Each structure stands twice: as C-alpha cells, then as structure tokens.
C-alpha cells in the first residue's frame, strides 16, 4: 500500500534501492537546495505575518496613523502582506523551475532507466 503512487505510471521502480539513492550526491544536493530555500523563506514570511498580527492586536494607534487621506498604516501593511505573498510565490516558482526541476528530472530518469544515481 505504501507504493500507492507507483500505480499512476507504467514504470516499475519497486526494485530501486531507495536508500542508496537517498545517500547519493545528486539527491542530497536536491534536498539541500529545496530545504535551503523553503525553510528560511517561510520563516521570514511567518515572522512578517505574525509581526503584522501582533501589531494589529497590540499597536492599534500605530496602525491607525493616517498616511494619504484616510488610508492608514494598518491598511498599507495589510495590502503589503498581499504583495509579499504574490512576490514570494513568483520567486519560489522561478527558483523551483530553475534549480529544482532539472535535478529532480535527472534523478527520475536515471531510476526509470535502471541506472545508478550518482
């Protein structure tokens, strides 16, 4: 049952030595790159989000400071959350397309061809 995902393709990879693949240099590089991006970026995003939540809860007057007309700091910070969410999304997609996908495809092709992953 653990091999559920295999049934979506016709290629049988159940005999692959996943332990060895996991230890291989190529896979370790993929893992390092993926974690090296998502962990720090997500931590920064969460700090920024919770900073905003805490400001909204405990710094009401600061959030109410008017900037342009009635448009205030709170609304600006809220809309900036939207902007950073869009920006991080685009950043991640371009990173994953450029840095992660080629290595993942290389490993996948090697396994499906029955070759050793280096």
């Amino acid at each position: 049952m653990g091999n559920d995902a295999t049934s979506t393709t016709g290629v049988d990879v159940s005999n692959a030595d996943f332990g060895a693949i996991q230890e291989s240099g190529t896979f370790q590089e993929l893992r390092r790159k993926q974690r090296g991006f998502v962990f720090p970026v997500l931590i920064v995003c969460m700090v920024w989000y919770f900073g905003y939540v805490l400001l909204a809860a405990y710094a009401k007057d600061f959030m109410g400071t008017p900037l342009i007309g009635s448009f205030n700091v709170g609304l600006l910070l809220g809309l900036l959350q939207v902007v950073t969410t869009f920006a991080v999304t685009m950043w991640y997609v371009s990173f994953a397309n450029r840095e992660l996908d080629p290595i993942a495809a290389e490993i996948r092709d090697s396994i499906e061809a029955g070759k050793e992953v280096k």
Partner: protein
Amino acid sequence: MLHGLILAGEAAKAPEKIGDPILNMTIFGLFVAVTMFVVIRASRNNKSAADYYAAGRSFTGGQNGMAIAGDYLSAASFLGITGAIALSGYDGFLYSIGFLVAWLVALLLVAELLRNTGKFTMGDVLAFRLKQRPVRIAAATTTLVVSFFYLLAQMAGAGGLVSLLLGLSERTAQSVVIAIVGGLMILYVLIGGMKGTTWVQIIKAGLLIGGAAVMTVWVLALNGFNFSHLLDAAVQTAGNPAVLEPGLKYGKSDLTKLDFVSLGLALVLGTAALPHVLMRFYTVPTAKEARKSVVWSIWLIGAFYVFTLVLGYGAMALIGADAIKAAPGKANAAAPLLAYHLGGSVLLGIISAVAFATILAVVAGLTITAAASFSHDIWASVVRKGNPKPGEEVRVARITVVAIGVLAILGGIYANGQNIAFLVALAFAVAASANLPTIIYSLFWKGFTTRGALWSMYGGLATAIVLIWFSPVVSGKPDSMFPTAEGEVGGWAVFPLSNPGLISIPLAFLLGWLGSVIGKNTEDPKKQSEMEVRSLTGLGAEKAVNH
C-alpha cells in the same frame, strides 16, 4: 438550536422584502441547469477510482488553480468577510490576510511533496512510511471531523441566505431549501465524481470572482476611484473613525487580543491541512502542474480578498451597519444588500445565485473528500486490506456521499443561523491541530514514528474539540450556541478563548515529537528513503492516466 430559533424569530419580525424571489430562483435555476449539463458531459469517462477521486489526473494547473480558488472561496469568504468588514471594520480584513498568507505554507511546504507521494487522500501520504492500519484510520477520522465542521458552516450559510433572497423567513421553508441544496449537491457528486465537481468549482470561481470584481469597480466608481474617499464615506456612515483601525472587535481586552492571535495562528496554519484542499493536488498530472495550480489560486484568491476590502467598506458606507444587522441573515447579508443597492433586483439575483453556487460547490468538494477518505482509507485499505473487489471502492464512495449528504442536510437545518465565518475558523483550527504536524513531520523528519503520528493526530483533534466545547463559543454568553442571557452567569465555558489554535496547534506538534522520541523506533527506514526520494523527485507519479 435555540440560537437559530432566536435568529429565525428576528427574521420573521423583519418582513421587508428585498429583490425579486422569482428572479433569484430563475438565475439560480439557470446556474444549476448549465452546471448539471457540464457535469454529465464531464463524467462520461468516469470508470476507475483514479477517475472518480482524482479526475484521471487530467486537469491543467490553471484549471485546477481555478478549482482550488472555487473550493477555498467559500460562503465564509464572500458573505462572511464582507459582512465582518462591514460591521467590525478593519478586524474583518485580518481574516482575508490570514486566509491568503496561509497559501505560502501550502505552496512551500506541502503541495508538491504531497502530490508526489500520495494517490487520492491525505491518508496515502501520512501512512506512506508508517503503519498503514492505525494511521489511515486516524487520518480518515480527522478528515471526516474537519469536513463535517466545514460542511456545517456552508449549510448554515445556505439557511441564512435563503431567508434573505427568497423571502422565506419561516424556519420550515428554509429547512426545505437546505434539503434541496443538499440534494442537488449529492446529485452532482454522484454523477460527476471529482471531474464533475472540479468543473462546478471552475465555473463558480469564475462567476464569484467576476461578480466581486464588477461590484468592486462599481463601488470605487461611486467614490471617484478614490479609496480614501470610500473610507471617509464609511467613517461617516458608521459615525466612528475607529472602523479604519484594528481593535473594534478584538481590541476590547487582553483576552480578546490573545484570542485574535489564536485566530491568526489557526488561519495561517489551517489551509495546508484542509483535506479538501489537499485532495485537489491529486487532480493534476505532475508536481509542476500542482505548483502552477497553487500559483493560479494564490493570484485569484489574493485578488478576491482585496475586492472584499472594498466591498466590506462599501457596504459599511452605502448600507450602514444598523441596516445590515436588521436584515435577515445579519452580517452575512452585507454582500447581497450591497448588490441590491448597486444594481437592483437583477444584480442581487446574480450575486445571490453566485453565493448559492458557492455553497453548493464547496459542499460538493467537501463531500467528495470525505467520501474518498472513508472508502479509500477505511474500506479499501483497512477493511479490505488493500485489495478491494473491482468497482467496490467507487461504489462505497458513492454510498458514503449519500450518507454524508444526509448528515450535512440535517446538520445544516440544525446549524441554520449560526455564524459561518466563525465555524470555518474552527474547522481551520481543528485541521491545523489534527493534521498539520503529522503532514510536516512525515515529509521532513526522519525520526517520526507511528506513535508520534497517532499522539499528534488524536491529541490535536481531541484538544481542539474539547477546548471548543469549553469555550464561550458553545456556552456562557448571549451569542453562544447554548446562550446565557446578558449579565447572567451560566454555562460551562472554562476556556476563555473562542479559537483553540494557540493551545492545540503547538500541543499537537509537541505530542508528535514526544511520541516519536519516546520508545523504540520500529519503522522501516527503507520506507522513509523511498518517501523522501519520491516526494522530491516525483518518481512514479509524473504521468497522466490516458483514456
């Protein structure tokens, strides 16, 4: 029940008729006819379990992104957030931000890895390298509970909407309409499976976002495309400049501020653990398409939430909080009332049909998720030990759809009149407590064990539910489910926060860690290797099913 009766009683006292019920019915009927046609056409190829649960993995990233937006932008987003901003000002906007930023957790940590590792359900991923039986049963349990909370919210929204739109203020008549909505939903899911449901979501997302965009431009045009002018108008109608800053609802005391932080935590961590959102990632052929679909949905959902800011302040300025509170459906009536104010009966009819469609589509998405979880994780994997008879799994799923549909109808009739945004926030808290720690640990932590998963899932689920039961949401306040009159002391609300996330989410993470480090690790290390290789490379999960 009591609360619902009180609301219905109030609705009966406000006989003012808004819009044209026959027009509303006609537009809604048109939507049902068109979508039913699409569902029947789309479902002609539904044969295998992969077709029924995952639409043959045949959707593109863009289509699936629309469908995710359709699943995610529930009645709570459209009616609930617009109403919350219209009544509480800035504090309502904070819901939007939490619901949106949450997608970064889904995109960066979960979507692709999950797509690569599983087949149909969350249980596939959680049980991949752990012991199948206990973990699948736990995953199915949390899926069913979360989906049920979410279903209640949608059905409760349907009841409130009906009273406003069709001019039905009688509780019996509303119950009949809830039953009709539920019956339609069962039909969609039975006929269409995941493919049909996905098309309904796509159509609905287009209508909802389009409708909100039109209203947004309209409101801005009335204010000379000057957002500051709109804010001024809102302040003027409300007679209170504090509507532009946070704190109107959650700033009353230290406790409510803490409650707000708890809500913020549940919102941002809940999305990546919602079973019906996770299941959507399986309808695309590759991890790359899964990534694309999240990107699409983030753009659509983000744009929509910016619209709700304008709509909420627009309703505050043009309708006024008092008129909204007096209308049947209360806060949930803000968006339809705004539509009526702008475009009269026709726009009200269109917007209310969109709102109905929203409820219908989200309920369908939830139902198919819960049914898949039961038939795939419990029936096929546990009862039949992974070898169901041919066609049996889909048959069990269809029976489950009917059972869940009936439960949802009964729950909806019972929950009619409850606050929908709050019910959805609870579903988020339960999801984040029961599912998220196990999802993250099993994807990223080698030392995670079956014991850790069970402690975290059951511990998180039980803590969240027990805290909700002992919270002011359930008892002790005038607006609780079991209300206590203003100024009196009563009920059993010993837990002071209305959202349990602040306690239950960290506790579930702690339990998952503790359960894993205590005792011997008897898990198969080969399975961990295989899961990690598959999740990062997409091995064996990269090609579409061809027909």
